[in-house]
């Protein structure tokens, strides 16, 4: 697997992106699923390996600066993000899941180390995310933007997170209690 990816992608993110563009996002996602002997993207139900990728990425995208922010894994952020994705059209869901499949293998092309994302250290994932966010390649930026929006929607909509950012619904007299 590793040597195969090295052969296909080399060290060049452009090759991964070119592959995505010629094959299409969904076929690239399915290709990575087949290669890693994992179930392919499935609208309506995210396969476990892809939710692991999302959760791991989320721990870094929504990393805390201090202890009063709850841990991503402790506040139901993953479930909220998955539900948010589940409200999108099935073709968009398949594309987002494909994006997660590509993200899982993105370190082979974007660095910092040839390894799956879920096996990278915190610091390594941060470096990968920064590379994607600032990449001159538009599909890499698009991938970062989609990931960030799903993660933020999952994490910052959790009421457990709100005290750390000073937000609350109970302090808002215009919000009826039964609608919170």
């Amino acid at each position, binding site marked *: 697997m590793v040597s195969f990816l090295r052969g296909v992608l080399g060290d060049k993110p452009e090759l991964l992106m070119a592959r995505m563009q010629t094959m299409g996002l969904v076929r690239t996602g399915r290709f990575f699923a087949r290669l890693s002997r994992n179930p392919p993207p499935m609208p309506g139900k995210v396969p476990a390996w892809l939710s692991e990728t999302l959760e791991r990425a989320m721990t870094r995208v929504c990393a805390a*600066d201090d202890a009063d922010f709850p841990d991503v894994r402790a506040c139901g952020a993953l479930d*909220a993000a998955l539900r948010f*994705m589940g409200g999108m059209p099935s073709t*968009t869901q398949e594309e987002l899941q494909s994006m997660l499949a590509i993200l899982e293998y993105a370190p082979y092309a974007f660095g910092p180390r040839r390894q799956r994302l879920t096996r990278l250290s915190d610091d390594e994932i941060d470096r990968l995310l920064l590379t994607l966010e600032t990449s001159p390649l538009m599909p890499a930026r*698009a991938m970062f933007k989609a990931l960030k929006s799903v993660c933020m*929607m999952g994490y910052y909509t959790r009421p457990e997170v709100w005290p750390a950012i*000073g937000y609350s619904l109970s302090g808002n007299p215009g919000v009826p209690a039964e609608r919170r």
Partner: protein
Amino acid sequence: MSRADAKRRVLPAGMISAAASDSALRLNADVVVVGLGAGGGMAFHDLALAGVDVIGVELGDYFAPEDMRCREEVMLPKLFMEGASRGTVDQAITVMQGKGVGGSTLHNTNLCKRLPEPILEIWRGQGVEDLGAELQADFQRVEELLDVHPVPDDRVNANNHALFRGARELGYRHAVLSHNRQGCRQSGMCELGCPNNGKQNAAKVLIPPALNAGGRALVHARVDRILTRGRQVCGVAGRAIDPLSGAELQPFEVRAERVVLGASATNSAALAIKSGLPDPHRLTGRRLHIHPGAFVMGVFDETIEGWKGVPQSAECTEFLNFGHDAEQRVWLVSGFAHPGAAAGLMPGFGAAHASMMRLYPNVAAIIAMVHDHYSGHVRPRDGERVQIHYRPDRAELNQVALGMREAARILFAAGARQVIIPTSPPRLLDSPAQLDGLTGAELGPFNPSMVAVHPMSTMWMGADPRSSVVSSHGAHHQVRGLFVADGSLFPTSIGGPPQIPIYTFGRRVARALLAGLPAR
């Protein structure tokens, strides 16, 4: 949602769910309106009240006031097209549009403005007729119907006060905006659907009287094709959609000799193209304008809590000029977002981003929205999805830069100690002196991150079938019996909130359609 669940859903009298039907639905009417948002909702209302046998077909759900929850993760996927994931094809610009009975007026922020005279003058120059006194009278009647009035002073929240303070300090032209609210309890939840039924929107003001007058509405029904017989329209066909899972269910068809498109500037054009309607000059879907906007945030020492109260009531028009040679074309208006969306707008990620999110209660924001001269185009995709091709050119990016600079200047003048500009990498500025370096030359896709909420044009009005898609009253130039009544109609971008103009043109189109109906 199972079919049995769909059947148990309580809908207002006159409204049925296509998802609840056991078999393919076939209905007949004199007129079918596709989409019940601002334009389609007004056409549906006026036709039903005139006694026409009209069916409104709506892709989205029906929301009773008590269905509105003050939670982003619950409401955004329900109220927005593509589950709030819509964007330009390169994903660089997020495009927000509504779905459901009421369309984008369910979640919009209720700003109301008429079309400015210079825009009408440009449209006249492009061959659009009847833009004089009768149009102004229509504006007035629409404003009365929707209870449009200036936002009262005591309802201007701290976020909007910041814009006023800064603009006043700098001597920039600014004003309090008008809105269409009654019974508003200042929850600040407008973009999630009002929990207090305080919006005088299409769902509240137009649809109930239309149903009472005998209009019928078919919800959970996505139109996929406009049916024609030669050059005459003869109905629409599509699929029932499960409102919970989005799954495609059984087909439906509504036969009618008149069809009104009110599916928005993106979806109406995509539908027309998908249906293979004659388009000899290949115009449909082009000229797409979206008012791309960037959020500039100011951090204040005092608490702002911009998520509370009427979200938008202040504008600065100092840099908003109209006309082909206008050098400054940005509309500055206050803006805010709830935590999930706000976190997406705040630059970066990780611990540094979390630290910025701590500033959330102290942030005031201004959206720099470009009155775009550049235009993109829209094409169909699968289901409700559309391809939005729009990548601002240098001239537009210069406007984005101008807007961000001036929004920042206003925030500093209002007392912000820091301003966050969402470029890549983000600029965290301590003084306005650092603003001059910000030019359009450094901007591009994803830089800054942008949002658009006003798609327009794509099936624009005009007298000449070689250079416009529909007549000045919305009748399609190529297909008899087909009308357009939504934001697609506008020949140019308008540089302000589009709902009042769209409602008003929806009325005008309904009137033209009525005039052509055989006497009953």
